[in-house]
């Protein structure tokens, strides 16, 4: 063991560097893309790219922090809002709201958020009930989450194919996950949800820290584990619900980012949660920029980009877990 390992300042330095890199990535994102000159330049920059970046950062931060908290709560590194079904539940709830004719706008968004929140909450608590029932092994939680996820997705597809065609096309576009913004409406609509969820979860970092040694140990150290679970799962469902309602289901953010953070910075929940938040913001900003600039003149849904990165990451994690 070298002297550097003992110095807590060294790990803090790495955390600061990682956070700075994230901020730089976010800061350069709006400057990337086909160059525009003349009058439309200012419009493209300030009315399209900047609000889009801000939404990407808020959604990425929320999804990533929720994923990190789920990993601690379920005591499972593979848990995240996309693997335990929260995203699919939110998507189903939002889709139900959309197909009843509600549009995503200042008046409609709260209804869609409510639908998504209800869906996310239903799946999350169904899963928690399964997890709390008897001595369910942690892998069973994931299997149950995958089952719930597939079930919710199947109902979603059925609803989409049965619905009237124009509502269905809008819903199909939304269900790919995208961050296209014009102006700052989305930023203002998402901000209260994001602030509430991030604040609620980050303020409990100390309680999450005790959970890494197990729920019983956390209880004996004075944490009200049940209320922590309820608050964290509720806040997670609200955050995922709001993000899914506005941008559609964007998968795997909450799985990938916390693992990258763990690799780069030795895990310590008090910096792990904030770093996952910042890292999530940067990750989705970068993915969305890639979605804009990869194919000039065309746009790829950002959900496809995160899934392209997320699927191999999940496989790698599973393989590594089973390695001796």
């Amino acid at each position, binding site marked *: 063991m070298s002297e550097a*390992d003992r110095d807590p300042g060294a790990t803090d330095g790495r955390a600061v560097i990682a956070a700075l890199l994230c901020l730089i990535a976010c800061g350069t994102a709006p400057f990337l893309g086909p160059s525009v000159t003349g009058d439309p330049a200012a419009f493209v920059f300030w009315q399209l790219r900047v609000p889009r970046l801000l939404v990407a950062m808020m959604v990425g931060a929320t999804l990533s922090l929720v994923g990190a908290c789920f990993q601690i709560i379920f005591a499972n590194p593979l848990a995240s809002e996309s693997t335990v079904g929260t995203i699919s539940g939110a998507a189903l709830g939002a889709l139900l709201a959309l197909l009843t004719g509600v549009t995503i706008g200042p008046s409609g968004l709260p209804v869609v958020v409510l639908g998504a929140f209800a869906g996310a909450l239903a799946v999350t608590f169904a899963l928690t009930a399964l997890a709390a029932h008897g001595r369910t092994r942690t892998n069973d939680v994931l299997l149950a989450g995958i089952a719930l996820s597939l079930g919710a997705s199947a109902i979603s597809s059925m609803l989409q194919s049965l619905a009237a065609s124009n509502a269905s096309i809008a819903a199909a576009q939304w269900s790919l996950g995208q961050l296209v913004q014009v102006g700052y409406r989305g930023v203002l609509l998402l901000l209260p949800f994001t602030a509430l969820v991030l604040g609620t979860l980050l303020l409990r970092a100390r309680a999450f820290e005790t959970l890494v040694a197990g729920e019983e140990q956390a209880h004996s*150290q004075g944490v009200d584990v049940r209320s922590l679970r309820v608050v964290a799962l509720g806040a997670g469902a609200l955050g995922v619900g709001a993000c899914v309602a506005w941008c559609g289901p964007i998968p795997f953010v909450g799985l990938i980012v916390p693992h990258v953070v763990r690799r780069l910075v030795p895990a*310590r929940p008090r910096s792990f949660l904030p770093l996952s938040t910042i890292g999530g913001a940067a990750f989705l900003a970068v993915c969305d920029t890639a979605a804009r600039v990869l194919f000039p003149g065309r746009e790829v849904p950002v959900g496809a980009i995160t899934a392209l990165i997320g699927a191999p990451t999940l496989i790698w994690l599973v393989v590594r877990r089973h390695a001796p």
Partner: protein
Amino acid sequence: MTCALELDDVSVEVAGRTLLSHVRFRTEPGELVALLGRNGAGKSTLLKVALGLVRTCAGEVRIGGRPVGKLSGRERAARIAWLPQHVLVHEALTAVELVAAARFRFDETRASAIAAARRALSRAGAVELAARVVTSLSGGERQRAALAVLLAQEAPLLLMDEPASHLDPAQQIATYRLIGELWRGGQGIVCVTHDPNLLHHALAGDEPDRVRVVGLEAGSILFEHRFGDPALAGSLSQMFGVRIAKLRCEGTQFFAPLAEEPGAAREHDRR
């Protein structure tokens, strides 16, 4: 602050199985109590009931005179701390961070939590583990880190579930010496163990009658003796179903388990 634990006629049933039945158990402030019994006798359950982790179906648990369910989490953690039998850590964090996390009940800065964690690690003889990642520790190292976690909570009553179970003899002795130091420092201790001989290492010399030994069988209290009581060997042999001989070595009385007694063997089979 001192604090006593009281189980008043407590019964626990989980999924139709009786784990504790009409247990009356109390400790005085600053008392050292050893809790012995066969595997599955309810020793760990008794500790968990005291922590409010397992719900009673009858009777009441009081800490410092107040029902455990009426205490807030932080109030309870200020009175009673627990060393579990197994500690599973899910995240790869360092020992000093794990120990600092145990100070949840204190309203303090990160720096003072880390400083207190280092003190606890050095008290537990584990200061060299501070920067090591907990998931990479050996069984013995992990147990010392767990002891530091227990100490960092600074509770007046410590519940220890087989604190020396995965340790080599030298570390077992060191652990029980530490238990003795904590006890003489005024902390109350309830210690689950299978090996009453280890208690000698907690006792510095000639005070065996200050330690109480409680035997638990099938969820009920079978006996209570002072550690120096000559009848203890008989009670132990009855409980464990083996013959227990008393050996005197270097001025200390040890218990040596010998072959099973025929009567006890039948008793064992009937279970």
